[in-house]
């Protein structure tokens, strides 16, 4: 019998991350005149704002003796001063002042990373800067649209970023991990459709004429006080490479036409998720829950943010345990189920990106 070797290892347990892509470096409000440090794609980055409010990302190590610039302070215009010997850099990472000499060493630069501010986030490009096209920032328009309201938080997930993507691409796990809030047995009983187009993957699942789980019943009653009865529930998972997943979720009064496009008798939310690799085994997981009803209720915004925070805490625990189990069982492989089709397309797309960067072989 012949075994045909394939170049793909789509079930790679610890997938490297593409570098030629936009990742979220932080929430817009996190980046201030006081520099902060964040490790992104294995590199420490110093983030700050210039006097005129522009976000800047520099390698967080001074050219001279590698002291972290994030411990320094911002100076006039777009500059930052190293806390150790006072070397000052501008936002392009170029030294503008050097102690004890009348000139500036022409080699004195620190890498400066392209950034784009969009959808309440500061996005960063860690790879080849000549490819950093702002049009490639994944779509998260609900974050800043007048038609949507909501808020979110950051989870520090102690796992490879792909494990978070796997988690979000298959919501069957809600039935088991989130049984008290959004889980219900219809999740694993209902059919779903996976579609891949270019660098996007969509997984659509409808559950008809079911009881609303506690989280959704509360939301329905926010919009329709005193609501009772069956609902049609949907989850439409939209992945955009490298690591943004916006999930169109909601329920509507059963049989009022939601599957056909009339969602007026329901409540609709978008779970906005974007995952930034920190290291090969840890991730910054930025999420928000946006809704299109009761837009001016800060109470509902806070309730939803705190509620989802609790739900995602259950994921965080599982993901950390999964990564630990992966590391503790190096001789075991992943196997796949039919429910993994969305996650498998994501892996296929990421592998193509890694191959284009000549980095697929580096996978562990």
């Amino acid at each position, binding site marked *: 019998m012949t075994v045909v070797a394939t170049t793909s290892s789509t079930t790679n347990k610890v997938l490297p991350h593409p570098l030629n892509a936009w990742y979220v470096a932080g929430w817009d409000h996190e980046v201030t005149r006081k520099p902060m440090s964040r490790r992104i794609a294995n590199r420490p980055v110093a983030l700050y704002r210039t006097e005129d409010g522009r976000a800047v990302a520099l*390698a967080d190590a001074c050219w001279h003796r590698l002291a972290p610039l994030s411990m320094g302070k911002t100076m006039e215009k777009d500059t930052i001063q190293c806390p150790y010997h006072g070397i000052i850099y501008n936002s392009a990472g170029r030294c503008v002042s050097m102690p004890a*000499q009348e000139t500036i*060493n022409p080699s004195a630069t620190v890498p400066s990373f392209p950034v784009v501010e969009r959808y309440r986030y500061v996005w960063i490009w860690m790879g080849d800067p000549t490819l950093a096209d702002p049009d490639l920032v994944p779509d998260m328009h609900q974050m800043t649209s007048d038609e949507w309201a909501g808020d979110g938080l950051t989870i520090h997930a102690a796992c490879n970023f792909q494990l978070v993507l796997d988690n979000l691409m298959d919501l069957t796990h809600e039935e088991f991990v989130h049984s008290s809030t959004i889980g219900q047995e219809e999740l694993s009983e209902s059919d779903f459709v996976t579609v891949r187009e270019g660098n996007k993957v969509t997984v659509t699942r409808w559950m008809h004429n079911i009881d609303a789980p506690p989280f959704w019943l509360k939301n329905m009653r926010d919009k329709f006080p005193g609501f009772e009865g069956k609902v049609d529930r949907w989850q439409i998972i939209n992945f955009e490479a490298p690591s943004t997943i916006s999930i169109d979720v909601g329920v509507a009064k059963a049989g009022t036409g939601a599957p056909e496009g009339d969602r007026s008798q329901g409540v609709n939310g978008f779970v906005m998720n974007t995952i930034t690799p920190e290291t090969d085994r840890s991730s910054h997981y930025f999420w928000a829950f946006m809704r299109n009803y009761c837009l001016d209720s800060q109470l509902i915004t806070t309730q939803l943010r705190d509620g989802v925070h609790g739900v995602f805490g259950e994921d965080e625990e599982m993901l950390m345990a999964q990564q630990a189990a992966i590391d503790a069982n190096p001789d075991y492989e992943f196997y796949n189920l039919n429910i993994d089709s969305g996650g498998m397309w994501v892996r296929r797309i990421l592998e193509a990106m890694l191959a284009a960067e000549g980095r697929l072989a580096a996978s562990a």
Partner: protein
Amino acid sequence: MAATNIETWQSATVEQVVPVADGIARIVLIPSLPLKAEPGSHVDLMVEINGEQAKRSYSVVESNHDGTRLVISVMKAPLSRGGSIFMHSLVPGQRLEITQPLQNFPLRVGARRYILLAGGIGITAIANMAAVLKRLKADYTLVYVGRSRGAMAYLAELSDLHGERLEVHVDDEGSSLSVPALVGRADADTELYMCGPIRLMDAVRRTWVERELDLPNLRYETFGNSGWYDPEEFIVRVPKLNLEVTVPQGRSMLEALEDAGAEMMFDCRKGECGLCEVRITELSGAIDHRDVFYSERQQRQGTKMNCCVSRAVTSPTGSRTDAGAGPAVITIEPN
């Protein structure tokens, strides 16, 4: 992966050596550990001079997308230290020790306007930048200056690629560059990248400062191998170490002192860091400052020099017509 200054040494095979201008050879290398060369990067490699190994830096003129082929170009400089003669003797199949591409001269993406200035063999550091800016549809002008067309490598290729964005100035055609006019075209949003003879770069730097343009927007790279004057043999005396050393034309003062057993402090060996500074206590002749560490004011004072690149010349004024007989003699205190 991003630019690095960590030297990763590897072997490389010479694929091709062809002349591309008077005295300039294009050398194609196949590295064993390929890494894409970003614009502005260079490789260090080991040359052999009189049976001894020495390290030289050469800009990467072009590389393919995965860095499996690196192109450098070397001008044969008879008055230099001998590395270029070795490089011109290379034949296909020969192996060299080279580093992976190193980066001290990064091109920043996103400037409003660019002026790229290449003088002579300095085009090797600039050509790749121009190609990237062309691909990015950036607003750039490539200014290429040379003594004669025959001595200007890649002129036809650059003309094909850059069309009207290429501006050529040729001394022996009477179309020499006006530095004030060139710098006059720069504004606060312009970045100027240059590589060429130190006379040209000093002139641009002076005008840049006079025009009060932002110094960090003036980018340049020097390997410390050109001066205001041709190198001469000279004598260096170090009373503290009881040494008198002759510095030959093809050797640096630092190297000559090391050869004589002096333990010298140094780092970059290209006139940038200032660690090899020595104090001048006596001088017959003048100093040809080839560093970029001192300001013009400090260079004029003439009390210190960077011995890795700077030299003594006989002319007390530095002007060739005042050149005296016999070697210049300099007395120093080392650090």
